[in-house]
């Protein structure tokens, strides 16, 4: 069943590339959307088959692939991966839908989109470290191509920077996985905390450190974040949606699954430092967002800040904080995708994202009132306003982490307050006041008389954002569904350090 989540996008991509004859862009787009729709439906089918009452991996599929190097094709899904698989399917579909006016190479574009989606599914479902790494690296090149071919004016620089950073991330992760095999003397690349417990603490810390930095680049956490704002700024809207909504989650997923999941003892040792790192990341991301004048960079820096919450939650590793981490991954996926979509609409209509230029976009007749309304909803959700997804996730993270790391949690709460600051700056500058889409000329009278003629936003352009906004509100009002889905897995994960300690002490074996 799980293999279909890989086969649909991969064979779909292959089919699109190899289909004989000329195909009109719209036909290619429709075919890709059909495949992505099918992937979403299949993900929902997996959800129906998934038993949330079980903590472990389910619906497992496996066969030996390259036995000699320990590379097995083993897939499984648990309460941590299931929501992310759904988010991946939904957001890739949204990316496909909001891809319009594709001027070149539509086949390649949609094939890359499908490849990324399949690779992300593979990474979330892998039960084998090498298989995970394979998929983790597989999404790298398509994303690099998506930025460097369909990106903005500085796309070459941004794409190369992204490639270098994430390639280093991949090297570190692969190094850690190979190191694990080397030090344990086993060619077993299954995810098993008991294996790592056999290692000395120094070795564990070294391997965990490599993994941490590898995933910190991907998430990204300060100071490994510099590739993200550039990549977002140059990427097209659908790619930004995918990048923020799905691909960053590979890093946080890796953090929970491999760092915490495989090195629980070393993780517990590093936890206070990690909480501090989270606070720095949150505060830095938030303060940097305040200083931005490009709307997209502001949203990108908000991502840097909000990813810090997940590190805080993972550092605390309590059942509540772990559940909060999953909520944060999902809600950040939806909210940041929503915000990037809306920034994309603003850019398409006004040809600028400059907060020093844009004014009054909420103008009911000549502006982008519905886009502005959704933007206000999005920023409220991001700032953790009750009734929306951001509140549930931040509340759970803070509630679960406060007892363990009160100072770091309080600092992260300040970061949450700063989210309101920079997003209110954004809304106030770009959406309130008299409508303007050109830089001030210096003559206030002339500026106040400028007639603005923005094209209207069609309903079909707003529908993806509306769907995401519904998800944000839906998750905020009815969080129990996701909670039920992940609670067993996250609770089990929170108990890993104690479990491993008990096993080592012979408590469970005797």
């Amino acid at each position, binding site marked *: 069943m799980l293999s279909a989540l890989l086969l649909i996008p991969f064979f779909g991509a292959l089919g699109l590339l190899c289909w004989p004859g000329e195909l009109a862009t719209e036909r290619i787009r429709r075919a890709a959307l059909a495949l992505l729709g099918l992937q979403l439906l299949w993900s929902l089918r997996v959800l129906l088959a998934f038993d949330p009452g079980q903590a472990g991996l389910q619906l497992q599929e496996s066969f030996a692939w390259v036995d000699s190097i320990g590379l097995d094709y083993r897939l499984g899904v648990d309460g941590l991966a299931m929501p992310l698989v759904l988010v991946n399917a939904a957001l890739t579909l949204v990316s496909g839908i909001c891809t319009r006016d594709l*001027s*070149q*190479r*539509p086949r390649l574009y949609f094939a890359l989109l499908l490849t990324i989606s399949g690779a992300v599914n593979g990474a979330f479902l892998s039960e084998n470290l090498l298989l995970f790494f394979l998929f983790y690296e597989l999404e790298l090149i398509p994303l690099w191509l998506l930025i460097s071919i369909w990106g903005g004016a500085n796309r070459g620089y941004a794409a190369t920077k992204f490639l270098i950073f994430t390639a280093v991330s991949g090297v570190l992760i692969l190094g850690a996985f190979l190191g694990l095999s080397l030090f344990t003397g086993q060619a077993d690349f299954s995810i098993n905390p008991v294996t790592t417990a056999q290692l000395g603490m120094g070795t564990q810390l070294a391997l965990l450190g490599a993994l941490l930095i590898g995933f910190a680049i991907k998430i990204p956490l300060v100071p490994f974040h510099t590739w993200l704002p550039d990549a977002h700024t140059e990427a097209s809207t659908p790619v930004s949606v995918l990048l923020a909504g799905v691909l960053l989650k590979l890093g946080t997923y890796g953090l929970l699954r491999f760092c915490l999941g495989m090195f629980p003892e070393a993780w517990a040792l590093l936890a206070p430092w990690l909480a501090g790192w989270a606070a720095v990341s949150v505060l830095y991301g938030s303060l940097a967002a305040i200083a931005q004048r490009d709307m997209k960079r502001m949203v990108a820096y908000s991502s840097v800040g909000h990813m810090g919450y997940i590190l805080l939650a993972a550092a605390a590793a309590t059942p509540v904080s772990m559940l909060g981490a999953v909520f944060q991954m999902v809600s950040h996926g939806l909210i940041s995708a929503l915000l990037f979509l809306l920034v994309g609409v603003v850019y398409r209509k*006004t*040809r600028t994202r400059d907060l020093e230029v844009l004014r*009054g976009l909420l*103008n*009911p*007749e*000549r502006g982008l009132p519905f886009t502005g309304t959704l933007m206000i909803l999005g920023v409220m959700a991001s700032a953790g306003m009750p009734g929306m997804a951001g509140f549930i996730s931040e509340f759970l993270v803070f509630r679960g982490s406060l007892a363990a790391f009160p100072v770091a949690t309080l600092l992260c709460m300040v970061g949450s307050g700063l989210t309101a600051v920079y997003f209110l700056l954004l809304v106030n500058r770009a959406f*309130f*006041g*008299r*409508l303007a*889409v*050109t830089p001030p000329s210096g003559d206030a*009278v*002339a500026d*106040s*008389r*400028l*007639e*603005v*003629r*923005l*094209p*209207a936003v069609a309903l079909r352009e707003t529908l993806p954002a509306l769907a995401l906004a519904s998800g944000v509100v839906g998750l905020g009002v009815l969080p129990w569904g996701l909670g039920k889905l992940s609670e067993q897995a996250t609770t089990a994960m929170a108990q890993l350090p104690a479990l491993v300690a008990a096993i080592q002490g012979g408590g469970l074996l005797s």
Partner: protein
Amino acid sequence: MRPIPRSPKPPLTFSGGLPSSDDLVETLLAGRTLLAESPDHLSQVVDVLESYGEVLDAYSINLIYQAEKQFLNPFPVFRFLDGDHSPAKIWRHLLHDRINFEYAEYCQKAMLWHGTGGLDAYLDSEAFAANCAAIVARKTRRDPLLAALNPLFPQFLCELIRSAATTHALGQFWRVMSDLFLDLARAERDGRVDSIATVVTFIKEGLVAAAGAPITYAVEIGGTSFWVLPPEAGLTFLGDVAVPYVEAVFLRGTPFLGTVSFNAQAQQISPDQAQFMYGALYADPLPTMGSGIPPSLLMQDMYRHLPERLRDRYLAGIRGDGDMRVKICMSFQKAMFCVTNAAIAGTFPHPLTTQAPGEQAANRAHAAAWAARLCVARTDCLDDPG
């Protein structure tokens, strides 16, 4: 696959010209129109004035109804129904399937508050106070609530009567203007009006024809008729109502809340009312339909009565029906410059063809006084963007 070449994107902004005060003086003295001459301008102005005429007809009927039938009514809940209290009318009213009479009240309050011209002078006169005393004495005999209020707030009922007098006067003014604008539309259809210049001339002649028409107002209380604005006051259409209306609504206006916040304590609003520049000729059409923007109500009303030709023109725009009210407001502002143009032309102290230096100087002073106010108005709308 080769990239698909994209058509050049249309400009997102348009900036009209801003003529200087000297340019405006020369334009006025040469008898040229303020609004650029173009077929598009002609159809916009005539059509928007036609819809305005329809709306003014409703405003006028309602204001006169309010002044006469809702006189000193402390709770005028049904004042917008023009006396028709049928369930169907009330239902339509509740569903807001109606004209926004609130805008008429807004203009009336602006007139009352700015208080310029002969009407305001009469409202502060002894004769008016005597009329008020007689009306209040009669009214309080039959109305216990007013009888209780009057001794406590002796100026309250007088102020309400002043307000009612302005309401009635505005109703009479708009009656004339409504007929004039509807006649203009007919004249354009007949071919008698075929340019902006002839539009201005048509309006000027209409204003001049009505200039001396008397403005009077009487109310009936308990079967007895009382004059509020008696014929003896000598109030006339042009000098006592039209000019104060132009001053209050076209020029001064009120600094309503909207996209701009005003801080009166920081002197952002002039303490001298005469310096106000918030009227129709200064208004920014772009925020139309934003909250707290009263002209939005007028634009909604005109939208209900838009002639087909103008509607089709608007629908052909980049936003179609989406920004119709802003476009109406833009056309309306052009039309108001034409009306102002007609008012200026009709009030020159001497014919523009005069050769006498003294008369020429007087005309120039008249034009310069107007130009000084108009050069900071929204003259950017006078160009034809094509």
